[in-house]
């Protein structure tokens, strides 16, 4: 054991002299009386997510599954984005013909400099939290490495309606296995990059994607 570690642990033990030696962690009771699971479902839940994520400066649109290809095309057009990063595991039959997809896979990952030059990224997500308008990425299929949704200036994110949960506790629970079993990195995104000014109004940010579009896809 390092000397520093030894000494810090020793300091802690003598600081906690009054704590009974047989006290267990759980003996300090924690009441989880706060709301863990929401009670919204279906339409109400989707509506809440759309409303809350739209309050940050993200563009949010509800679409049907068969419109997906067309809507991706329109969104990219709007941002004049052609060279789009496509994470490993993203369904290629959703991709419009006019895009120049830049595939990132573990065999041949795009370099940071390459990513910096591209127009944007299209990704899916792991979950979305309605209460806070948050998208959760877990580096799974269709999302890829963290850097993919960070360096390009435009992020188009596809959220399936059945991925929306209501509360923050449900959000953390939903990716807990990915962390515990696989140690995957988790990223919460709530609106585009922003900087909070003195009034704490969000204004456009300096880093990270400055434009965020969300397509909420129904059955």
């Amino acid at each position: 054991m390092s000397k520093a570690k030894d000494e810090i642990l020793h300091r802690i033990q003598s600081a906690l002299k009054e704590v009974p030696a047989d006290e267990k962690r759980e003996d300090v009771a924690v009441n989880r009386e706060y709301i863990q699971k929401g009670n919204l479902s279906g339409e109400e839940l989707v509506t809440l997510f759309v409303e809350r994520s739209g309050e940050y400066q993200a563009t949010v649109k509800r679409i049907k599954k068969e419109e997906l290809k067309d809507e991706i095309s329109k969104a990219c057009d709007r941002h004049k984005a052609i060279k789009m990063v496509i994470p490993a595991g993203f369904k290629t039959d959703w991709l419009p013909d006019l895009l120049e997809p830049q595939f990132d896979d573990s065999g041949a990952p795009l370099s940071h400099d390459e990513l910096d030059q591209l127009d944007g990224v299209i990704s899916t997500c792991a979950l979305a939290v309605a209460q806070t308008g948050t998208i959760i990425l877990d580096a799974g299929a269709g999302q890829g490495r963290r850097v993919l949704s960070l360096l390009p200036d435009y992020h188009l994110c596809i959220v399936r309606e059945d991925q929306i949960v209501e509360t923050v506790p449900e959000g953390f629970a939903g990716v807990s296995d990915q962390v515990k079993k696989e140690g995957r990195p988790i990223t919460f995104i709530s609106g585009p990059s922003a900087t909070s000014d003195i009034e704490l109004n969000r204004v456009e940010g300096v880093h990270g994607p400055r434009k965020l579009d969300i397509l909420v896809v129904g059955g």
Partner: protein
Amino acid sequence: MSRQTPTFQETADAYLNNTQLRENLGHATHTIRDKRADIVGEMPDWEHLREAGNKLKKRVMRHLDSYLLQLEASVQEAGGHVHWARDAEEANDIITGLVKQQQVDEVVKVKSITTDEIKLNEALKKEGIQALETDLAELIVQLAEDEPSHILVPAIHKNRKEIRDLFREKLNNKELTDRPEDLAEAARLYLRKKFLSAKVGISGANFGVADTGTIAVVESEGNGRMCTTLPETLITVMGIEKLIPTWQDFEVFMQLLPRSSTAERMNPYNSFWTGVTPGDGPQEFHLVLLDNGRTNVLADEVGRQTLNCIRCSACLNVCPVYERTGGHAYHSVYPGPIGAILTPQLKGIEDDGAASLPYASSLCGACYEVCPVKIDIPKVLVHLRGKIVDEKKRNGSLKAKLDPEHVGLKLMAQAFKNSKRYERAQKLAQTGQNIFVKDGKISSLPGYLSGWSAMRDLKPIPKETFREWWRNRNE
């Protein structure tokens, strides 16, 4: 005694006289206060969340040794390295050593109060390593080789023309206009190059999870994601009190923090990483666990709760003393009510400056009401005042009895005996301050505030501050 910091009273007066800064600060704190109240108000279970947050932290503190060992094991299992630092110097040595191993002379940094506390940037500089701050406001302050003027708004004393001139000179961009968009873009491009070439990133940690080894950084601009994702090596400095027991406990703290801090349902970006992920992000991860006085705080049964703090700054924004005196008066990287209780415990009450801080309060209790982890700041303040008086009596002289601080405590104690009288004292303190503030010049304040009389000159504040400019530029 060496390196005594000036007392709160010595500096506060200058701020009381600085109308511009006071107005900016007043405006800022009021706006944040109102927004926080709204966003907290929409949570029917807020009190349950606070209670759970308090108890989780209490659990951690009472079993801190076992939780730290668990965290260490989890991080190591996930491929990270863990270092222990007894004090600032030891932490700085560890970090400088790690950076030198990578043979670089520049690192990118995301703002962290803990690294400010240990003066990491200075330590790196001594070894020829430049630590580049990447928050926009921090960058401006750093390029200007200035001191932050405020914890929430570090560049409050710079207007857009000054920023343009600064960027023209330092970023070598001669054509730059003072259009806000152009300035923001200039900073983005400058930092982007740095991010892309950085080999080492340094961050603080908002939370560390004992059972999974996960570290969390909570931020807005995206520079935190850059620093923790792009470099090959990541070094994170974490105070030993930042622990939470399990991954599940984020469900409490990640509701409490954003709403209390920036008054948002959720801040733009939260990064959670667990050791090293092959093929994704830094492939070398070092976690430096810092004591630096925290175990002293732990040893005081009343003061211990100070370690619950999740650095949301809600207590600053509701504090009438902070609002009127500004962050500098606290002479610490931790200003406001939390600074008034944390600094003297970290530094020790032998330091006159630190020992003056527990008197920088009218004990109105607003800080306790907003604190998301229910730290009873007034109680700790009164407790520390008692300790300070005892200490003075012990070392000292009869004079200690006539010491204004001692008198202040007595007044407070009298006021406490009788709640009517206490309320009157509150009123007196509050309206008293207003009256004196309107005068512009203050030579004395009533009652126990009369210690605030030292005079100091402050740089004049430009007409339009950086933050005003930032806000107005979209209009």
